[in-house]
């Protein structure tokens, strides 16, 4: 078939909501876009383990410690599922990890912000995971089969993450004056970066149009961001806290919340590596990977030896 016809047949499949599977023909750009998006998503899960992992040793109760560990471990699992689905597009996990470490591959900028107090564990769960979930629920219906299947599994597991975050903040909001202050401070620091998680405005997003047409994405950045604001602006009332945006108010005509302008200068700077923790995050990942090299090599060497011995026995 001519490329033109292949592309036409491909788009027809997408339009008919037929999932694309690894061995199917796909346009080069579709493969690349998926690979970029899925590997970025995987990297975000893995780098995202670090700011929360910080607090495992200091969690204030045994119950909270167990919850936090389970959550950070889930993120490792999610990274693993996503790397696996990206691998179906023909790039090895090693390659993706190399790209992360060299700075070629990006990950969600939110994880370049520091976790400074225990309340940050709550705020990250409620706001950051809350924002991620909106995106991920949409991605359960994405057009690339392995990605969609990974997302279904992730969404199922992720549902406790946001709840435990809100629960942790709820306890703080009813606690001592110091705890209330800690809670408000964490919300203040995480609110704007959470809004930035949805990416540039639709008018400035370069990847959005084609991704929508291919049904990799099914809602625009601005749509998702609005959903998020509407959800959080209601939930925060239950905490008795405030969001740090004087322009936030209900718009009766539009039946949604209006909110203030995001600091896009900060957004682009953090993306480009100038966030508070960009260097530390990548350094930590590199260190783990490099220090693990002899471990991985030993396991492989042993597996090979064992195989040779088994063969020798048989012969």
């Amino acid at each position, binding site marked *: 078939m001519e490329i033109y016809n292949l592309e036409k047949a491909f788009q027809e499949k997408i339009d008919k909501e037929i999932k694309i599977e690894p061995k199917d023909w796909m346009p*080069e750009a579709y493969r690349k876009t998926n690979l970029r998006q899925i590997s970025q998503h995987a990297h975000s899960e893995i780098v995202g383990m670090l700011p929360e992992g910080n607090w495992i040793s200091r969690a204030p109760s045994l119950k909270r410690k167990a919850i936090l560990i389970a959550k950070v*471990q889930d993120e490792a699992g999610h990274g*693993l599922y996503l790397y696996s689905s990206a*691998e179906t*597009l023909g790039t*090895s996990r090693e390659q993706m990890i190399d790209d992360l470490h060299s700075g070629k591959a990006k990950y969600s900028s939110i994880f370049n912000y520091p976790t400074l107090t225990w309340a940050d564990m709550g705020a990250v769960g409620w706001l950051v995971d809350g924002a991620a979930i909106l995106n991920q629920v949409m991605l359960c219906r994405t057009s690339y089969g392995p990605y969609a299947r990974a997302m279904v599994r992730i969404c199922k*597991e992720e549902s406790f993450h946001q709840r435990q975050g809100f629960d942790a903040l709820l306890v703080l909001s009813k606690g001592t004056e110091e705890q209330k202050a800690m809670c408000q401070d964490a919300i203040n620091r995480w609110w704007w970066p959470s809004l930035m998680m949805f990416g540039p405005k639709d008018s400035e997003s370069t990847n959005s149009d084609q991704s929508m047409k291919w049904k990799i994405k099914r809602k625009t950045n601005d749509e998702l961001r609005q959903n998020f604001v509407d959800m959080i602006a209601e939930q925060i009332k239950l905490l008795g806290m405030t969001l740090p945006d004087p322009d936030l108010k209900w718009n009766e005509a539009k039946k949604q919340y209006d909110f203030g302008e995001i600091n896009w200068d900060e957004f682009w700077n953090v993306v480009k590596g100038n966030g508070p923790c960009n260097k530390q995050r990548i350094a930590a990942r590199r260190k783990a990977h490099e220090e693990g090299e002899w471990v991985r090599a030993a396991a492989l060497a042993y597996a090979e030896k064992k195989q040779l011995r088994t063969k020798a026995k048989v012969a």
Partner: protein
Amino acid sequence: MNTPIRKFYYGDIPEENTGGSINAISSNEKAWPLWEVFIRSKQGLDHKHVGSLHAADATMAIENARDVYTRRQEGISIWVVESKFIHASDPADAESLYEPAADKIYRHPTFYDLPDAVKHM
């Protein structure tokens, strides 16, 4: 005919007819092989493909599958198989492989219009 699947991708297709490309692997490190994981969620059901993971050998692959894919009691039995040993049909053959079954409607019970008086059939 089976199309053997190459390392890393249980869904690879030759570059020349995909429009896609396969990136070169720049890392010098030899990676642990990829394994496909199948889990029986409860006694009486089939093992079902749930995903993949990396492991140095089969023992480790089963343990990794246990640690990765059954954290929430998703299974009671695990199969693993190294991805490179899976053979898959070629999507290009899909029409000739699967469509000929479409007109064999007499294979389905609903094809037969029996009198209502016939019970339990």
